[in-house]
């Protein structure tokens, strides 16, 4: 136990096993980004996957929307200590997008419109663990929250769920992305409190 502050009582929330260590529940959906939000009309939107072997696949918005869609109910955890439980999303599983991709790469860099990047091991993206989501709570994803579409990797801290997602680059090495180069953890598992580097 740490230093006790006598006189500090805090505002306890009911213990919830769905909340990782050091997190507290919020009902709101805070917006946290490093700069202004880019504006990408769906006509201009494109999603790509590139491999180290020179393969490049792209989807237009129309082609993306024609893919099998999944409804996702999940908890999300921000490194700034808030967790939001039971959020509802709709989007395309990365398993669907990676169906025809052949690669020996084990790592990825997610690229966003506006230049943001974040790195993820490929295994964290597959097996029903991540999506490209375009709907939140039954409505198209707002621009401030990453619309038209964002990556959704809810089992990692939410900075890994790149807003304004543009594509996934497969890499041989684990290359630190934007926040990972600026003091944050290379992996970001909230259950292990992988917050800072």
């Amino acid at each position, binding site marked *: *136990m*740490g*230093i*006790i*502050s*006598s*006189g*500090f*009582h*805090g*505002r*306890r929330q009911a213990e919830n096993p769905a909340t990782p260590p*050091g997190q*507290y529940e*919020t*009902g*709101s959906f*805070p*917006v*946290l*980004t*490093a*700069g*202004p*939000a*880019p504006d990408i009309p769906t006509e201009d939107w494109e999603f790509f996957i590139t491999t180290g072997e020179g393969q490049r696949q792209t989807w237009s918005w129309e082609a993306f929307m024609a893919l099998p869609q999944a409804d996702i109910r999940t908890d999300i955890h*921000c490194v*700034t*200590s*808030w967790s939001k439980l039971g959020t509802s999303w709709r989007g395309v599983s990365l398993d669907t997008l990676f169906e025809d991709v052949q690669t020996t790469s084990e790592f990825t860099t997610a690229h966003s419109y*506006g*230049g943001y990047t974040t790195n993820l091991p490929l295994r964290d993206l597959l097996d029903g663990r991540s999506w490209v989501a375009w709907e939140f709570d039954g409505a198209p994803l707002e621009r*401030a929250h990453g619309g038209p579409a964002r990556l959704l990797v809810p089992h990692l801290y939410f900075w890994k769920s790149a807003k304004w997602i543009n594509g996934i680059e497969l890499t041989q090495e684990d290359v630190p992305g*934007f*926040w990972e*180069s*600026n*003091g944050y*953890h290379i992996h970001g598992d909230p259950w292990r409190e992988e*917050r*800072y*580097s």
Partner: protein
Amino acid sequence: MSTLWRVADVVSGYPETETSRTIGLRVDGLMGNLPGQHIDIRLTAEDGYTAVRSYSVASAGRDEIMEITVDELANGEVSPYLVRDLAVGDQLEIRGPVGGWFVWRPTDTNPVQLIAGGSGIVPLMAMIRAHEASENTSPFRLLYSLKSPEAGFYREELLTLSEKSRKLTIDYVYTRKVPQGWPTAPKRLTAETLLANILPPDFYPETFICGQTIFVETVSEWLVQAGYPAASIKTERFGGTGGTR
């Protein structure tokens, strides 16, 4: 490593405004912080319950002491304790300083535009202090949006700097109450007022914006529309975490 919790001694505490307080923390072996970084503070109640919140560092020294300025939120869990109850001589735990993005380094050569909404001045003040203490000659300009003159942090220091500093210009916007003799009535910040009080795009400023989410969103949107490259704008928000800071 910055991820470890360390013990900090509270070495000073003085009121900044009616609802805020600047707290000095001494940490063994600390080598200061980069201007713009934050720390996490952990408070532990007698039964072991803990609460963690992030606070920007206001100071820019390279020693064992950091200062934070905490604004009390009416429904806050941690801030009322820090502003009202914490005493000099107490100890608490900190993690950090953290962050390598919303920071200014004395080796940066671009002109700098700082835009603060209310207590968003805190990390920008660290940049101003570091800039003043450095040999860096690039111009700094601060736009400080405030509800009223009484809500301002670091008032005397900023007044002195506005009179004496050759490399800092300060502009104020008052949204609810203006100082006596102020040329205009209080009004909401508009794009027009904003753009009239900051470095123009052809100065290629690096812009740092800090305040509540809505302030940061609105101001950064206006800047992009006015032709400031998005890549030159860095933002930091607070009050976004459910209002329970």
